[in-house]
């Protein structure tokens, strides 16, 4: 008996181990027609209005659709919407109806200029003149309104109360259109905004009259406007879209999604994107109208937000969502959710009734939740995931290997050294430009990125449509750097280090621990600057400490960081001078009135050519001033097993079968078209591409 424990059991275990090992070694690899994607983290939720982590948006992107989407050139195109139309209503208020009528007549008299303003119609409503424009924006409205006399200024008043205002707010709403109150917008349960005609005192008194003392209202003036400019978007929705549970998609769904986003108990991280919306409405089941409080052109892209199914969620409490929808989503996308095993995988299957195109051809997608880069690599090499985003240092190893194919695209991110512009010597533009000449960026790209990157020329990255390709990068030129520094008063001191007025040019460069690339950047900068006589001390801190004690407080000389950007041109938070307080993102303290103006204007501009020229000017101005030392835009590279997937799409009425390719937007958009070549016989007949 005891001998069995000593010898029998170990033998049994050995047998088990050997059998299981032989089984995996000998398993024939008949792959399924599936795409397996490795992810570094677990999605927090698959509810698109809650999840802000990249894993969550990656998965929910295959399950849901927005009204709009980015195409392969990262430009806005329609998705659930069939088309959309942008217009604007500009409302001017007058002292009395006579003045308004005079203005109307004046406008009628200058009909010849209507097309230049894109003016389509004008209407009188009491003492207000409502002007319809085909193109949202501020410029045309300013020109038109400039012609009128007897206008009444509008005071935008913000009210915060201790308790939800309830009846008081209802009373204010009721007096809308009564001649004095132009607009009410509710910001949250205890804050709202009222736009009132007249002087500031009058307006404040008017609002105070509505609010009982018990609410302890805090009434402040936000701004004074000459008129109301309210852009609107009318989406015409596709009528052939079905939710995964078979229910039809209608305008009720985007309307519900909007109300869920604004719900404070959801605490959606995407709420700020929708804060400029005044209201939404559904004129018909397939029309969805959005009216904005002011021109804000980046707001259009917020309708790429995934749309939620109203028929499932309306009226359900938050707790119900967590287990019943957030982990079992129903969408309209190319793939249907089937299973989520925590810390293992999320499995999706083909949606045969997908509205966009004949695909998808894949039977499903499996998102595998793995821990780290090494796990991803091990999973990729054992055919457990189908592609892997390679670190720059590993790219050359894969390039030589016949079994793999590599795809590279410049990423939408850049690395930089931020100078603290509030501290000398970095407050001197000549010094910053000298430093830009002193750093050998091509060498940095060569040794840190193994050549997989390009020198950055400012705040936008090359594959964006508003990127300015004419900005010349600063070239590595030690002599020029020395000359510029000498011009600024920095000359070599007795110990070989530059000095000015007895002060040595020495500073501390900080970055966060655990990021080897940033550490290497700091080391190269230290070496480059040493060569022209500048002493750099490098300090590294744990990420949370780095942010809390140094970055958020603006307590540093210089730091190495990077930006991963979104695909829009609005960088107000990063560069506007009003955003330079502690905890805000203009941490270097950049302040240029010209750039401030551009940042303010570009958000209100809807015309593509004007956006391109403003963005270009902004990029050039900032780059020339070097508040950051813009380093490089890294390439992102993905590796796949050769010939493991093909793309199938209709070309001239025939199926065309081509190797996979990567677009500016990566290839997530094409994943609907992937399939494994060994399954081609099960697909509709196809035509091979003609040889060139």
């Amino acid at each position: 008996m005891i001998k069995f424990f000593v010898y029998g059991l170990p033998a049994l275990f050995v047998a088990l181990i050997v059998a299981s090992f032989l089984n995996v070694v000998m398993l024939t690899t008949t792959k399924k027609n599936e795409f397996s994607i490795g992810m570094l983290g677990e999605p927090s939720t698959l509810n698109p209005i809650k999840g802000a982590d990249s894993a969550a948006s990656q998965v929910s992107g295959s399950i849901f659709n927005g009204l709009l989407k980015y195409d392969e050139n990262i430009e806005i195109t329609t998705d659930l919407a069939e088309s959309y139309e942008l217009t604007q209503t500009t409302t001017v208020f007058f002292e009395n109806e006579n003045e308004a009528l005079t203005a109307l007549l004046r406008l009628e008299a200058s009909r010849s200029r209507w097309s230049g303003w894109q003016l389509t119609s004008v209407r009188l409503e009491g003492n207000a003149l409502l002007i319809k424009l085909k193109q949202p924006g501020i410029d045309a409205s300013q020109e038109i309104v400039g012609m009128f006399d007897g206008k009444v200024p509008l005071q935008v008043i913000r009210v915060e109360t201790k308790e939800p205002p309830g009846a008081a707010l209802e009373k204010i709403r009721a007096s809308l259109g009564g001649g004095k109150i132009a607009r009410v917008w509710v910001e949250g349960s205890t804050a709202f905004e009222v736009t009132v005609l007249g002087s500031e005192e009058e307006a404040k008194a008017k609002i105070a009259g509505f609010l009982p003392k018990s609410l302890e209202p805090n009434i402040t003036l936000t701004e004074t406007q000459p008129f109301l400019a309210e852009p609107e978007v009318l989406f015409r929705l596709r009528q052939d879209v079905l939710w995964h549970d078979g229910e039809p998609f209608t305008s009720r769904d985007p309307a519900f999604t909007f109300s869920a986003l604004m719900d404070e108990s959801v605490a959606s991280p995407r709420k700020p994107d929708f804060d400029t919306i005044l209201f939404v409405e559904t004129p018909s089941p397939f029309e969805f109208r959005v009216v904005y409080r002011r021109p804000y052109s980046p707001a259009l892209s917020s309708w790429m937000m995934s749309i939620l199914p109203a028929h499932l969620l309306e009226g359900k409490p938050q707790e119900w969502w967590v287990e019943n929808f957030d982990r079992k989503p129903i969408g309209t996308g190319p793939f249907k959710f089937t299973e989520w095993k925590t810390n293992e995988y999320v499995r999706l299957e083909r949606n045969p009734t997908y509205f966009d195109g004949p695909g998808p051809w894949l039977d499903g997608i499996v998102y595998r939740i793995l821990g780290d880069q090494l796990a991803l690599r091990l999973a990729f090499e054992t055919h457990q995931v189908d592609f892997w985003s390679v670190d720059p240092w590993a790219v050359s190893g894969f390039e030589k290997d016949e079994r793999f194919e590599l795809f590279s695209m410049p990423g939408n991110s850049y690395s930089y050294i931020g100078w603290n512009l509030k501290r000398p010597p970095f407050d001197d533009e000549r010094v910053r430009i000298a430093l830009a000449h002193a750093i050998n960026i091509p060498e940095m790209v060569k040794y840190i990125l193994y050549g997989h990157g390009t020198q950055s020329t400012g705040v936008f990255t090359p594959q964006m449509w508003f990127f300015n390709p004419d900005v010349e990068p600063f070239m590595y030129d030690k002599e020029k750097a020395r000359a510029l520094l000498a011009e600024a008063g920095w000359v070599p001191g007795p110990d070989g280090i530059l000095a000015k007025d007895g002060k040595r040019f020495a500073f501390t460069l900080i970055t966060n621990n655990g990021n080897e690339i940033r550490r290497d950047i700091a080391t190269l900068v230290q070496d480059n600057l040493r060569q022209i006589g500048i002493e750099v001390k490098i300090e590294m801190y744990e990420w949370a400490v780095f942010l809390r004690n140094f970055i958020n407080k603006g307590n540093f000389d210089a730091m190495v960081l990077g930006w991963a950007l979104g695909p829009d041109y609005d960088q107000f938070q990063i560069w506007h001078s009003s955003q330079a307080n502690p905890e805000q993102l203009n941490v270097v303290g950049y302040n240029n009135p010209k750039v401030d103006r551009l940042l303010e204007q570009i958000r209100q501009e809807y015309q593509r050519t004007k956006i391109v020229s403003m963005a270009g000017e902004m990029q050039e101005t900032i780059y020339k001033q070097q508040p950051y030392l813009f380093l490089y835009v890294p390439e992102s590279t993905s590796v796949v097993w050769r010939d493991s997937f093909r793309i199938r799409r209709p070309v001239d009425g025939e199926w065309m079968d081509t190797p996979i390719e990567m677009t500016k937007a990566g290839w997530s958009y094409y994943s609907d078209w992937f399939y494994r070549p060994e399954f081609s016989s099960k697909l509709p007949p196809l035509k091979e591409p003609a040889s060139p």
Partner: protein
Amino acid sequence: MLNFILRRLAISTVLVFIISIISFLMIILAPGGPNPWGELNPKITPQVKEMFRKKFHLDRPIYEQYLLNMRDLFTGRLKSIKDERPVINRILERLPATLTLNLYAISLSLVFGLLWGVWAARRAGTTADMLSSMGAFALIALPGFWVAYLILIGLVNYTGVPVLGTQSYGIDFPTFANRWLDRLWHVVLPGTILALGGIAVQSRYIRATVLEAMHEDYIRTARAKGLPEETVFYKHALRNAVRPLITGIGSLLPALIGGSLIIETIFAYPGMGRLGYEAVLERDYPTLVALNFIVAGLILLGNLLADVLYAVVDPRVRLE
């Protein structure tokens, strides 16, 4: 005995709460905080951060947060900051995987520890025994994660077999047996690596206790009776020597449930250890509070169990 158990239980309860306070302070005072969208995100306004902090009581004083967490823990309403699901559900769904892995690893270390210990004891003093001792200490000393990575990379480079998770992906299994052997492999691999240190430790225990037993009077008596050496060793010496093995089971309780942080994370294995590891990285305070509480409780319970088992197995021990 009952008295002893009750007294120990009372002391343990107090102790568990003290541990929970200390561990809560350690978690909450560490730099950083829960931040699902990443710092320096231009899209996140202070209002959103405020909404988020309110939602999870992060705007309250620390003692209040502790009390709220404890209240929710005992009423079962404790919710994770990461996905807002009840923490108890998050723990329960990972329990089967962890139990499987640890049951396998613990039995493996006991079984092979016994084999190795017996083997070494029978050769006590020989060169082979010395070499095996060195081997055992080397295994105990080697860091588990290092061994794990070496084995993983070696296996992938030379055999190309899948090594991560709980099953192979993207393939159709020809038979039911293949599917289950595949699953077994995904327990066997991390489990064996997890057990390596345990095997070495157990083998040392067994060897020492067996050798000690061999010097006892009853062994001399048995030999004097003229029993064959075989019988003396297995029936008389070994039977008495395995007593520490049985009592040791009590102290294995926390390991059984708590799981292994490092091995589970390396093998992308969906267990409690990985839950804890990720909760630390995400600063998911409610999940950490629950995990700490459970593991601390299990450790104290395990110690108590060990003492009781000791008294049960060995009549010479009395619990007062």
